[in-house]
C-alpha cells in the first residue's frame, strides 16, 4: 500500500469520534468500582478488633494515607500512560512511586529499630491470609482498571500495567491494613508490602503483553 492510498483509505473512514473522558473523570469512575470492593472486603473480613484504639496512632494513620495515595495516584498514572503524551509530567509516575517508597521505607526503618532485620524476617510465621485477601480485594478493581486503560491507546504498556496493578493492590492493602491486627514490621513487610511489590510485576507483564493493542 502506498502512503497516499493509505491516507485516502483512512480519510474515507472519518466519522465523528467520541473522545475518551479525561483522566480525572476516569479515575473517579474507577474509585467508584474500587471503593465498594474494599468496603465489601471490610464487611466480609471484619475490621481489626482494636481499630478504635489504633486509629489515632500516627504510624497507622500515615500508613493508611500512604496506601490511599498509592491507590489513587497509581490509578491516575495508569490511565495517563494509557493515552499517548510525550509531554507527560514526571510527577504522574514519581508521586505514586514516592508514596509507595515512603510506605516501604517507614516499614523497613521500623523493622530495623525492632531488632536484627534478617532474624525478624526469618522468624516471621506464615500469614498467607493477608496475601490472599490483598490479591482477592485487588482482583476486580485491577481487571476493571486494565480494561479502562485498554480503552485508550497505551503506547507504553508496561508502566500502564504496573501502575494499574499498584492501584488495585494498593486498594487491597488499604483494606488489609484495616482488617489485619498484626502491626509488627516483619509481618507488614512480608505479607503486605512484598505481595504488593511482587504482584505489581504481574501487572507489568500484563501491560506489556495486552495493553498496547496497537502493536503488531
Amino acid at each position, binding site marked *: 500500500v502506498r502512503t497516499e492510498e493509505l491516507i485516502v483509505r483512512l480519510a474515507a473512514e472519518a466519522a465523528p469520534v467520541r473522545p475518551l473522558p479525561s483522566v480525572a473523570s476516569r479515575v473517579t469512575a474507577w474509585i467508584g468500582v474500587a471503593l465498594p470492593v474494599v468496603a465489601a472486603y471490610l464487611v466480609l473480613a471484619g475490621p481489626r478488633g482494636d481499630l478504635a484504639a489504633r486509629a489515632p496512632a500516627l504510624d497507622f494513620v500515615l500508613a493508611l494515607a500512604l496506601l490511599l495515595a498509592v491507590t489513587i495516584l497509581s490509578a491516575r498514572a495508569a490511565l495517563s500512560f494509557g493515552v499517548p503524551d*510525550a509531554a507527560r509530567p514526571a510527577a504522574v509516575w514519581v508521586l505514586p512511586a514516592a508514596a509507595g517508597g515512603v510506605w516501604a521505607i517507614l516499614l523497613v526503618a521500623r523493622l530495623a529499630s525492632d531488632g536484627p532485620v534478617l532474624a525478624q524476617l526469618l522468624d516471621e510465621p506464615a500469614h498467607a491470609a493477608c496475601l490472599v485477601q490483598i490479591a482477592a480485594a485487588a482482583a476486580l478493581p485491577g481487571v476493571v482498571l486494565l480494561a479502562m486503560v485498554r480503552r485508550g491507546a497505551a503506547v507504553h504498556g508496561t508502566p500502564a500495567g504496573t501502575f494499574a496493578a499498584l492501584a488495585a493492590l494498593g486498594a487491597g492493602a488499604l483494606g488489609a491494613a484495616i482488617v489485619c491486627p498484626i502491626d509488627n514490621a516483619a509481618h507488614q513487610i512480608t505479607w503486605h508490602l512484598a505481595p504488593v511489590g511482587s504482584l505489581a510485576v504481574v501487572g507489568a507483564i500484563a501491560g506489556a503483553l495486552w495493553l498496547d493493542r496497537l502493536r503488531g
Partner: protein
Amino acid sequence: VTPDEERRATDLMRGALQGESAPYADLLVVLTAVTRRFARARLGPVAWLDDVVQETLLTVHVARHTYDASRPFAPWFYAIARSRLVDAVRRERRISGRELGDPAVMKAAAAGPSGHSRNDIDVEAIRRALDALPARQRDVVEGLKYRDESVRDIAARLGLTESAVKVTAHRGYRALKRLLGGNRA
C-alpha cells in the same frame, strides 16, 4: 512540528474528530511529512522509512479518540510517532534475524517467482514466511486469508478492535512482502 504546523494540525484534528474527511486527509498529509522528517532524522535513509510513516498514520487513526482537543497536538502525536519508530526498529531487527537465520526463506526469496513453478513457490515460501511472522500477525493473516474469517470475527476472538486487526494485517502483509523478496512500498 513547527508552531505553524502545530496550529494547523490542531485545527485539522478538531475537524477530523467531528468526522470531516477533508480536514482529516489534510492532517494525514501534514503528519506524513512530519513523520518522515522525524524518522529520517533518527534512522537515516533506511528503506523501511515508509513503514514507520504508515504505522504512525494507522495508529493516529486508531487512537484518535484519545486526543484531548483542549491540549497541544504535538506531544500526543510525537508519543505515537516515537513508539511506532521504536517498534519498527525492533521488528526490522527481528525479521532481519529470521531472514538471515532461515536459509529456506533466503533461498525462496532469492529465487523469486520465476525460479520454480508458481505453486511450489507460493506454498513453500509463503508457509515459511508466515512462520517467521510474530504470532499475532500470523494469526490475523492466516485468519483472513486461509480460514476465511472476517475482521469482526478475528477482533472478537483476539479481543482486539476491528481497526487493530486491520493494522495488524497491514503489518503482516508488509512483513510477508519483505520476507518474500518483494519491493518495498
